[in-house]
């Protein structure tokens, strides 16, 4: 963890990983005994198609009910041994499917048939849970037509190598993926965000407009890139209302590879960062328990340590080593107990450090007072909640140790829910 410099007048300055040293290829994690996959829909006891005991093949599309739009692609061959409810972030209810793996791997053929016709329907059917977790629902929504796709080639947090590693090593697959997306969606405008340092490696080689970003944190945050592209930031209706949709480069590479091979990719690139800050690149089946990855690199976890999905500024802490890596898990960060700074319940002392550090000019000192009181609408209307590009720097410097960033995310989430409900009620 980086500390405040002695001369506190200078701002903290972080740089993203440039993945220049990643000449080593990732360590392949063996297929674990059990994998856990999530279907992002509430658990139902009465599933006719998905029951414990049923055998599944690698690449098979699993749904709770035939007509359900929510599905997950099995990353292994084996037998379902458990289906149970799972409580995800912000209290969202999902269904967890645990599969005991089989030695003999068999590939499902449903996709290879569909792969001959790369349509939006095929993408929406088979890809939402593929590595990089692309979301196609916004493309199918005709209330807000999407006119620009942005392929995100950066790492959305510090310490992480995954995004840039994929961009560097899978450039052909990404190019193929761009073609497929263009044909399937009919969207002409496709931009790809890459680090400024390596623009020359991509411009002209990729069939997309190259959008460079700087290497100083938080220039590569997705919202920062959106702002650089459009000069605007989304409000409670989300990016879809702006007609812009993001895909991770890893997802586009997965799409490109899948249609070339006729097989769905089921492996995720993950950066594993141990307690000393040493990084390892791994490749593992989606659904592999975190513990298996940590074991592969000899990382031991003790009581009161912290495991984080994602990076140090914007990640999510998890509560068990048994939780699986998901299609969006770019990194696993392990922190020793002694490195953890605790939040406090002090009020804002108006020190102004957050104002100096905020790249978006959000009046954090005022905003946080409203958010603490639950007055989200006032925060959004009067104190620029929606200008926040979600970098977490304000919490990083706050001497009162207020979980400001969490308040901001919660406020955005709650307002988004209200706006969604209102939109649904409109005739």
């Amino acid at each position: 963890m980086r500390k405040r410099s002695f001369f506190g007048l200078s701002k903290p300055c972080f740089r993203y990983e440039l993945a220049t040293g990643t000449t080593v290829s990732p360590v392949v994690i063996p297929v674990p005994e059990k994998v856990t996959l999530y279907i992002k829909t509430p658990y139902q006891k009465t599933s006719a198609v998905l029951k414990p005991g049923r055998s599944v093949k690698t690449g098979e599309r699993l749904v709770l009910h035939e007509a359900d739009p929510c599905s997950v692609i099995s990353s292994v061959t084996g037998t379902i041994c458990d289906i149970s409810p799972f409580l995800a972030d912000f209290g969202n209810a999902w269904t967890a499917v645990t599969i005991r793996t089989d030695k003999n791997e068999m590939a499902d053929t449903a996709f290879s048939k569909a792969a001959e016709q790369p349509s939006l329907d095929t993408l929406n059917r088979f890809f939402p849970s593929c590595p990089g977790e692309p979301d196609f629902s916004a493309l199918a929504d005709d209330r807000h037509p999407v006119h620009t796709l942005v392929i995100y080639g950066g790492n959305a947090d510090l310490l992480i190598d995954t995004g840039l590693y994929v961009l560097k090593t899978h450039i052909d697959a990404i190019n193929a993926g761009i073609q497929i997306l263009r044909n399937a969606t009919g969207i002409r405008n496709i931009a790809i965000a890459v680090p400024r340092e390596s623009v020359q490696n991509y411009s002209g080689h990729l069939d997309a407009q190259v959008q460079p970003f700087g290497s100083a944190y938080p220039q590569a945050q997705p919202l920062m890139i959106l702002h650089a592209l459009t000069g605007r930031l989304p409000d409670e209706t989300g990016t879809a209302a702006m007609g812009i949709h993001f895909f991770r480069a890893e997802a586009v590479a997965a799409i490109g590879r899948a249609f070339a091979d006729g097989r769905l990719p089921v492996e995720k690139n993950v950066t594993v960062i141990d307690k000393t800050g040493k990084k390892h690149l791994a490749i593992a089946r989606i659904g592999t328990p975190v513990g298996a990855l940590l074991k592969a690199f000899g990382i031991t976890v003790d009581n009161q340590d912290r495991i984080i999905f994602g990076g140090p500024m914007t990640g999510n802490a998890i509560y068990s080593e048994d939780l699986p890596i998901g299609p969006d898990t770019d990194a696993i960060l392990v922190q020793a107990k002694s490195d953890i700074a605790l939040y406090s319940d002090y009020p804002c002392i108006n020190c102004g450090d957050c104002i100096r550090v905020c790249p978006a000019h959000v009046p954090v000192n005022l905003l946080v007072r409203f958010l603490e009181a639950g007055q989200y609408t006032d925060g959004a209307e009067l104190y620029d909640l929606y200008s926040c590009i979600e970098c977490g720097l304000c919490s990083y410097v706050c001497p009162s140790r207020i979980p400001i960033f969490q308040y901001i995310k919660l406020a955005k989430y709650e307002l988004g829910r209200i706006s969604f409900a209102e939109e649904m009620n409109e005739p």
Partner: protein
Amino acid sequence: MNPKKTLLVSHAPFWHDGGGIPERSYHTLLAALPAACAGIAFYGAPALGVICLSISTAILWELLMNRIMRRPITVGDGNAALVGLLLAMLLPASAPWWVVVLGTFLAIVIGMQIFGGIGGNPFNPVVLGTAILSVAYGRHLDFDAGLVNFTFTAFASSTDPISALKAFGPEAVSHLRYLDLFLGKQVGGIGSTCGAAIVLGGIYLIFRGFIRWEISIAFLASVYLSAALFNMADPTRFAPPLFHLVTGYTLIGAFFLATENSSSPVNLFPMLIYGALGGVLTVLIRNIGAYTDGVLFAILVINLTNPLVDKIRPRAIGKAA
């Protein structure tokens, strides 16, 4: 399977720069210490007594309020101790014990705790406490009357230069050398006279990022400029600008009082306006107002303007309109 481990779960970000309120308070205490020590050197044991009483009662008042209001005990963060020390530094070494106790009561209870404690106070508690004392018990805060029993062999004048200026005009203080005044050879508050020590502490705080330099610099620059204008208009009635900088509460006000977090702005232009306004008001009160030293009232007034001026802020990015 190995026994379950409890992992720590919390929200992003998972890094923190390590700063905290105790750190800020203790470093500000440290920065104020040289000036306080200079006061002890000049005034001896009585000054030490006032400082100790002030710090300890400030802590006790806060503890008492924490208890009464059933709030977490906050004395460990050092803020009460800081308020106590700064209050003592503004008082004369001759201040009777009950003035000190009353002063810390006003600062901690009236100035801070009834507004919800640290971060909630609209006025600088130290300034508020001292200002009320000076209005209600001006006699005990009058440096000349209080310190009449002290002998100041090292000082060129045994009266408070700024009240001498008020009473007799610039002629009466023209024999004082600025360097002597800056080094603390003047009659005044325990910790407010030794400009050199205060500036040293102030620069430390600025470089450590514990106070906002914009406020201090704007305050001092504006004291200098407005005093210079007065002096140009009529040198026989108004003292030269440097005199105003090195006397009274100007320096301690600029570095330790006007910069109090909760009652001062955080955006660039507001900080400059706030500081500049404080400087102008100080000189106005000193030169044509009723009070001897204008710093306390000037700071109270700019505290009042803080929420208003802090509305001037840069436009946040990505606004649709």
